[in-house]
């Protein structure tokens, strides 16, 4: 026969208990569930996103009517229990009663209301439930005062500010969140809140709430008055113990429970914020979930022991990244390691005692929080890595240089989701088992399903397991940032960012100096956006573009002079031959791009060889660049009996317009004199096929790792028009494509129709050409000439040659 379980309170703790109980023993209990709120279980932590408008109430419901119905739960919502009759094992509300074999008290806590005049006026709320949240959602354009600058108060303040209220936070202590933050971090937090228009008044003691029929203002002891259509008191909570006290259960600060969560009455159990366990009361959800696990076992007559672990705190205010765990009060024998980056508003502090971490406070950059927290919980000896500890796992020997690798370095038991105690190993297993979207991961492990602040980390672990991006994760440019290429380009433009450090700072790069993947991309985006203002950062370029030659497998280089449209002269060939001999070039080869490659040149010889080639009128062929490579041509009407137009001349002209420009990936053109297409124009990035009536321009071909025929873009009657259309197309590609996408990939993303519309519109076309020319006023020049000057030449040689000194 089923036993009768009565639960008082349908909150975070009892909700989790019921899940465990129904999972493990679906037929053991008949459950009756009383709740003071007129609804079932929802994710209380998520009230803040509901308040700020980032989520709706429906999205945070954890158990809906169907859930209760399927499990036969007798729901008595909106019915607070008013008495427990222990002798007869019955609980009573004002409307009904219920008999129990076992009773669970899960009444949570009650907000603390400071006893000042006016505290009972309408318009004064706490921050605990949906009713409070709804009252606060209604403050757009109004004045609101939040009393209490702790976790809850600040989430309330930020939420109302997001709704358009004028918000003031009055806080008794010297800085915000003093229980979790030290003054420095509190200051950064205050500054960030003030930036979003919130007024912060620290050391403010509330004297009274003023108003006749409803709250109108808040008066402080120092005489300050803040107008207030709504006052939110968020100064603390105390365990909700009234029922237990009346029933003469043992109650101290909370309802006293033993390790199995049993109260002083063996038929009555309690969990959640209403309990006190070994002198400790609770205010965060993680230990309550552990309690739920233990109590489920106790109710199934299994042995289980609740042992609280330290919990970490995060603030759920978008844009205020804060992490705190452990104890950071100054004390004898304690030492601090502090890291600050004032420019980026970053502050990190570790408190050490005997080479163990006892406290962590981080503001601005909390990526390493989980790692520090793990070290702290494990009591790890950090002596050996003390000097670099503060820089996080990325800087520890053996670990890696980016956040992804930092996640990779975490042991399987490392906790990723603090609320639900989900470890890295659990996430990896679930991903291996097919949970490859965030939603799937949430439903099968609960990771990131509560407060949500670990979402990024969960995604990183999933990405690790899946060997790529998580399906619904925003694909960051690289491991240094969560911003996509497109976002970064957009933000560079809209925020007016004009240097790599500015981008990294203002877009919150997670690494110190970026990586080999984002730096070249950023350099390109910046020079494409601000051709006149931005100075090319040579050190952010891949070796080939830095040294203007292709590096070979043995560290030598290849040199490819430009041969405009594939046409050369005897004197150019002579200069190439001379250079090949003078510098002992091991191989001279005709490339697939209609020009000549000198392979195997030593680095220190490069500027000398370039100077020699320059003297014969040869310039860099940019065979190494993400830029204009070659324009292949055929002989065309000049010599060929089928030629319809001067394809060679047009190719040369196009190459002379486009050369030197940097592009997202390399750009190759082909111009054929007739549809026989001897220049293979129809597999190039831009191909032109001459016909009797003019020029057929097609784009987005490929002949490398993918092979693809071009698609028609336009036809033109004249050479001039052809050059204009091609130039406009190249500029559109330069402005829009993501780095390392060839035109065919970009065209596939944006659609050829959109491109046609831009190019066809005369004004847009002209503007594109104008912007291209502005950029070319800087970049249409020979890098070889710039780098073979007397000042530059020595930089190509070794800094010092100690083998000579040895010989001396």
């Amino acid at each position, binding site marked *: 026969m089923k036993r009768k379980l009565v639960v008082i309170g349908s909150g975070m703790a009892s909700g989790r208990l019921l899940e465990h109980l129904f999972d493990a023993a679906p037929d053991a209990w008949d459950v009756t569930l009383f709740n003071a709120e007129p609804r079932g279980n929802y994710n209380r932590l998520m009230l803040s996103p509901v308040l700020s408008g980032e989520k709706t109430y429906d999205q945070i419901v954890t158990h809906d009517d169907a859930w209760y119905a399927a499990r036969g739960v007798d729901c008595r919502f909106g019915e607070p229990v008013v008495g427990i009759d222990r002798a007869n094992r019955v609980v009573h509300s004002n409307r009904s009663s219920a008999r129990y074999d076992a009773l669970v008290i899960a009444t949570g806590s009650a907000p603390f209301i400071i006893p000042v005049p006016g505290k009972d006026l309408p318009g004064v709320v706490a921050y605990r439930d949906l009713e409070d949240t709804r009252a606060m959602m209604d403050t757009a354009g109004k004045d609101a005062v939040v009393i209490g600058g702790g976790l809850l108060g600040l989430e309330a303040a930020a939420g109302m500010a997001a709704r358009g209220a004028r918000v003031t936070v009055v806080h008794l202590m010297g800085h915000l969140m003093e229980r979790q933050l030290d003054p420095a971090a509190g200051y950064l937090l205050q500054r960030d809140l003030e930036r979003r228009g919130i007024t912060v008044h620290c050391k403010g003691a509330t004297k009274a709430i003023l108003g006749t029929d409803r709250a109108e203002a808040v008066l402080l002891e120092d005489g300050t008055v803040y107008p207030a259509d709504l006052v939110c008191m968020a100064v603390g909570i105390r365990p909700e113990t009234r029922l237990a006290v009346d029933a003469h259960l043992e109650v101290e600060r909370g309802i006293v429970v033993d390790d199995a969560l049993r109260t002083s009455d063996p038929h009555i159990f309690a969990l959640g914020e209403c309990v006190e366990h070994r002198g400790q009361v609770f205010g965060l959800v993680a230990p309550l979930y552990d309690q739920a696990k233990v109590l489920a076992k106790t109710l199934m007559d299994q042995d289980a022991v609740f042992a609280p672990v330290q919990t970490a705190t995060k603030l759920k205010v978008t844009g205020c990244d804060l992490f705190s765990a452990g104890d950071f009060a100054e004390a004898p024998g304690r030492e601090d390691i502090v890291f600050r980056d004032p420019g980026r508003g970053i502050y990190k502090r570790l408190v050490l005692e005997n080479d163990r971490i006892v406290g962590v406070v981080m503001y601005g950059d909390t990526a390493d929080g989980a790692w520090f927290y793990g070290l702290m919980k494990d009591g790890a000896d950090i002596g050996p890595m003390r000097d*670099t500890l503060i820089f996080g796992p990325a*800087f520890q*020997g*053996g*670990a*890696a*240089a*980016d956040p992804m*690798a930092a996640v*990779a370095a975490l042991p399987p038991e490392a906790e990723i989701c603090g609320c639900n105690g989900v470890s890295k190993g659990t996430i990896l297993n679930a991903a291996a088992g097919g949970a490859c979207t965030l939603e799937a991961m949430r439903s099968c492990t609960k990771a990131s399903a509560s407060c949500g602040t670990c979402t990024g980390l969960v995604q990183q672990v999933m990405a690790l397991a899946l060997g790529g991006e998580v399906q619904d994760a925003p694909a960051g440019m690289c491991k240094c940032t969560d911003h996509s290429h497109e976002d970064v380009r957009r933000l560079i433009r809209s925020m007016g960012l004009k240097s790599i450090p500015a981008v990294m700072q203002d877009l919150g790069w997670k*690494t*110190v*100096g*970026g*990586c*080999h993947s984002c*730096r*070249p991309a950023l350099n390109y985006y910046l020079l494409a956006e601000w051709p006149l203002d931005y100075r090319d950062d*040579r*050190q*952010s*370029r*891949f*070796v080939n573009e*830095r*040294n203007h030659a292709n*590096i070979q*497998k*043995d*560290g030598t280089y290849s040199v490819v002079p430009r041969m405009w449209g594939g046409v050369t002269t005897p004197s150019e060939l002579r200069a190439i031959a001379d250079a090949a001999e003078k510098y002992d070039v091991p191989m001279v080869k005709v490339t697939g791009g209609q020009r000549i490659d000198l392979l195997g040149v030593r680095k220190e010889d490069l500027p000398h060889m370039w100077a020699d080639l320059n003297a014969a009128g040869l310039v860099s062929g940019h065979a190494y660049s993400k830029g204009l490579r070659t324009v292949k041509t055929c002989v065309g009407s000049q010599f060929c009996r089928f030629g319809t137009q001067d394809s060679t001349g047009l190719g040369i002209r196009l190459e002379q317009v486009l050369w030197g420009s940097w592009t997202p990936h390399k750009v190759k053109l082909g111009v054929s004199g007739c549809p026989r297409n001897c220049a293979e124009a129809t597999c190039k990035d831009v191909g032109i096929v001459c016909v009797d009536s003019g020029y057929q321009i097609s784009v987005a071909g490929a002949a490398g790792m993918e092979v693809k025929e071009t698609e028609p873009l336009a036809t033109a009657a004249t050479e001039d028009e052809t050059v204009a259309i091609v130039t406009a197309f190249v500029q559109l590609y330069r402005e829009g494509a993501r780095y390392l996408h060839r035109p065919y990939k970009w065209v596939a993303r944006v659609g050829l129709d959109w491109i046609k519309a831009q190019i066809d519109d005369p004004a847009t076309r002209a503007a594109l050409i104008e912007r291209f020319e502005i950029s070319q006023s800087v970049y249409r020049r020979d890098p070889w000439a710039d780098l073979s000057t007397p000042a530059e030449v020595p*930089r190509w040689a*070794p*800094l*010092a*040659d*100690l*083998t000579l*000194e*040895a010989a001396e």
Partner: protein
Amino acid sequence: MTLFVDIGSLDDIPRQGARVVKTAQGCVAVFRTADDQVFALEDRCPHRGGPLSEGIVHGTSVTCPLHNWVFDLNSGQAQGADKGGVLTYAMQVRQGRILIDAGLIRRSAAA
């Protein structure tokens, strides 16, 4: 005690770049980070011999230009999944001059 020899001025190396010093024990890459820290590493990637001096320097790491292995400039160790390392050499910067372990002048390996 390590003896040091002057190999040049800090300004001879671009920030986030490197220069090569030829030594009796092979080429040594001398790196300068964005915040003017200086490191000296063997200039030969353990993967396929790529010149680390030509890699992109980011933070205190360098990416090999040939196949993107990443090395920690402090330890010379490959990062992430790649295994291997290069030798590191003692260095100093004094009044804008770079000094390197004089042991590198000797023909026979000091180590």
